[in-house]
């Protein structure tokens, strides 16, 4: 019996890492040297066992200066990654600051991308602040609160895939905070209506 459970903002697991996991770990090892991040969306369900792959791994990051972003960009290039466009300044100004995602992928693996966005909305900043530290094998990653994922997927996204992702999390996690899910639903629905 191995239900996942978050205790005091942390969770521990030991799993066979997929190539997708290795990609995520490698890219976030670089990113985390420059800015705080939180993993969101489909990869959250996948890391915790969902039987599907993905082409996009989404993260929110904290506000970042152009200088820091350029340092991150150069560090990623050195490690063999590339981006939407080959210009760090344009990426920062025309993508990141314009609420578009900066995509990062390995030169030989363009179909699996890390999609980076700045947390702008209240709910996004809150997810970043309430991120869960997940220890796997020898390292750790920061994930969104599971309750937020369930709330967002069931109340905003609502595609078949998203509803399945949410259901998977509801089954494999124990002691999920139902009141917190309802609260997140209220927050994200209000943000959605205000847009």
């Amino acid at each position, binding site marked *: 019996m*191995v239900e996942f459970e978050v205790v005091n903002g942390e969770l521990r697991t030991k799993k066979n890492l997929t*190539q997708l996991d290795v990609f995520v770990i490698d890219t976030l090892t670089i990113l985390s040297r420059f800015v705080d991040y939180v993993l969101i969306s489909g990869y959250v369900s996948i890391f915790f066992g969902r039987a599907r792959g993905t082409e996009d791994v989404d993260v929110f990051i904290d506000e970042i200066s152009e200088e820091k972003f350029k340092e991150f960009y150069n560090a990623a290039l050195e490690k063999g990654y590339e981006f939407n466009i080959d210009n760090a300044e344009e990426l920062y100004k025309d993508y990141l600051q314009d609420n578009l995602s900066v995509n990062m992928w390995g030169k030989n*693996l*363009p179909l699996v991308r890390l999609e980076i966005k700045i947390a702008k909305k209240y709910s996004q900043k809150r997810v970043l602040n309430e991120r869960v530290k997940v220890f796997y094998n020898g390292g750790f990653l920061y994930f969104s609160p599971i309750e937020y994922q369930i709330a967002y997927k069931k109340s905003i996204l609502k595609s*078949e895939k998203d509803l399945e992702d949410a*259901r998977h999390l509801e*089954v494999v996690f124990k002691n999920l905070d139902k009141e917190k899910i309802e609260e997140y639903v209220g927050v994200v629905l209000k943000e959605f209506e205000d847009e």
Partner: protein
Amino acid sequence: MNEREINSRERMKYVEKWAEFVKNNPDEVWSKMQKELIDSQIENAERVKLTKEQVRYIKGR
């Protein structure tokens, strides 16, 4: 219930069945199976060898 709704219901049943398997088996067991599935998808994608321009086209920007 139309065909699409029936398909959705059947897919959700499978999702729940797999989630129960994950819940009731050690991490090493389910993650080995998951690894086989996901790694094979990635290996297929690697064979495609899309260019950066093609990826941008797919993404619409």
